[in-house]
Structure formats: C-alpha cells, structure tokens
C-alpha cells in the first residue's frame, strides 16, 4: 500500500495508531487506506462462482458513499488479484448491485443498507463497518477494536450468496451465524 506522507496526509482522518506502532519506520496511513487495502486483498480470500466471476474477468469493487475509501482504492485500480484486474467505482443507494463483486457499505450510512438488501442472494461480498452489519444481512464487517483491525464474518450470509471464504480468512475472523 502506498503510504501518505507529510502534507499528503489527509487532515482530520483518523490515523491508525496500531498500524504506526507496528511499523515504527513507516508513515501513518489513514483508516480509509487500511480499508481500501483490505477490500483489494479480499479478492485473494474469497471465491466467487464461475458464473459471477469468470477467469480473467475484472473484479468490481463498489463503494456506497464513502469518498475517502473510494479515493484510497484508486491506487489499486488496474492491479490484479488472483488473476482478476480490480476496478473500483462509486455505487448509488438505488443502484443495482449485481455488477459488483465486492460492495462496501460504510456504517455511517444506514440508507445504504438498501443495497445490501438488494444484493440479497446474489454473489456479492458485502463489506461494512457498522456495528450490526453482519446481523443486518452483510457478510463481512471490518472494524477497529482498541485501535486494532478486526473482522467479523457471517458464514450463513456467505453461504447464501454462494461465496466461498477461505479458511485463511475465517481463521482470523470472528465467525457469526444467522438462524
């Protein structure tokens, strides 16, 4: 991940203390950058049905109303993950999410949960940072606890959307199941 340095650091954006402490020689990165890097790398931990993501097809990362994350994703556009070139874009709340492979919904925008509901059983990996995200139909929640990155995965929702999440990721996450 490219690191923002000096004046390029976006003022007011939360810097991740843990990341700095773990990499004392590195400049701080923003929370948006950490999320962008995670969204990009999720492609290596998740398998989509071939009907949803054929070999060589672009992997589409959609972001609902979080310009900071969208900007932070720009450096990843055109890079490949598991043979799929990544393309990120903004998605409106009333849009059809079926063309997204990964859909990021920030917790601050409850209205964007309509996108998650619309994604329904589609093979779209829904990612959010709201406290109740994986209990509101989402599959993966990324959050910070005591300044440390954490994941929560709803395996029931993942199964419903026919996504296969690697045990490499499941082993690092808190696993939630819906009834």
């Amino acid at each position, binding site marked *: *991940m490219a*690191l923002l340095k000096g004046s390029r650091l976006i003022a007011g954006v939360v810097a991740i203390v*843990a*990341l700095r402490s*773990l*990499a004392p*020689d*590195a400049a701080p*990165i923003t929370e948006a950058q*950490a999320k962008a*890097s*995670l969204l*990009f*790398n999720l492609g*290596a931990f998740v398998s989509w049905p071939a009907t949803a993501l054929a070999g060589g097809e672009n992997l589409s990362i959609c972001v609902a109303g979080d310009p900071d994350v969208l900007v932070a994703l720009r450096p990843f556009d055109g*890079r490949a*993950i598991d043979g799929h070139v990544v393309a990120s874009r903004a998605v409106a709340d009333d849009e059809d999410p079926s063309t997204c492979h990964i859909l990021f919904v920030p917790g601050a925008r409850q209205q964007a949960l309509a996108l998650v509901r619309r994604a329904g059983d589609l093979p779209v990996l829904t990612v959010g940072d709201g406290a109740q995200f994986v209990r509101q139909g989402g599959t993966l929640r990324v959050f910070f606890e005591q300044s*440390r*990155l*954490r*994941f929560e995965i709803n395996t029931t929702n993942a199964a419903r959307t026919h996504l296969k999440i*690697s*045990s*490499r*990721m*499941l*082993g*690092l996450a808190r696993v939630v199941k819906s009834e």
Partner: protein
Amino acid sequence: MTVNAVSARDACDFPAFVARLGGDAILAREMAVIFLDDAGRLMTKVREAIDGGRPGDLNAAAHALKGAASNFNAAAVVHAAAALEAMGQTGDLAEARTTLQALERASQTMIRVLRMAIEDGTQCAS
C-alpha cells in the same frame, strides 16, 4: 505424528504472507497481530475439545487454527492442526493428546518468531 523440533523455516514465513497481500506489509502485520491475539484462544478450543472428547469441536477448532496459520506458511502448526482436524473428523482421538503436544510446541515457536517478525521486521524464515 511427532514434531520434536520446529525449525524457524517451519515455524512461519512472514515475507510470503506479505507477498500474498501484494506487498502490503502493514496490512500483513495487522492480520498477523489478529492471529497472535487469537492463537491462544484457538489453542484453548482445541485443548478443551480433546479434554472433553468432542470430535466435532476438535475438527472445527483445528480447522480454524490450520487456516489461520497457513497464512504464514507455519508448516509445523498446519501439519499438526491438520492431523487433529482429521482425528476430529473420524472421531478417533486416541493419538490426539500426543499430537496436541506437538501442536503446542510448534505453536509456541511460531508465535515467538512471528512476533519477532512483525515487531522487529526480522524474517521468521531464514
């Protein structure tokens, strides 16, 4: 299976994980910290499943530990966890305690060298 000594190479390979994340060392470190924070909990689940004679729980706990450890190419831990996962699947726990000892040794080495790798920037596989 037995694991008498765990070499640094078998303990973990942090650079390989960084490479898998497209060279993002910071994200790799964050995910390694998650693993270090959770490794003890996963080991406890494995131990309790064996003590309680619960093969299903052993299968699930060993599978989670194997998956997480495989991120770091922690061969010794993955090997022992896979053996325990298989025992949990078949329900034959006769060798589980012996393998658990091997897993605990491998896990301790892995945690030590992985912690060094992420805190000091040293490579755990050399």
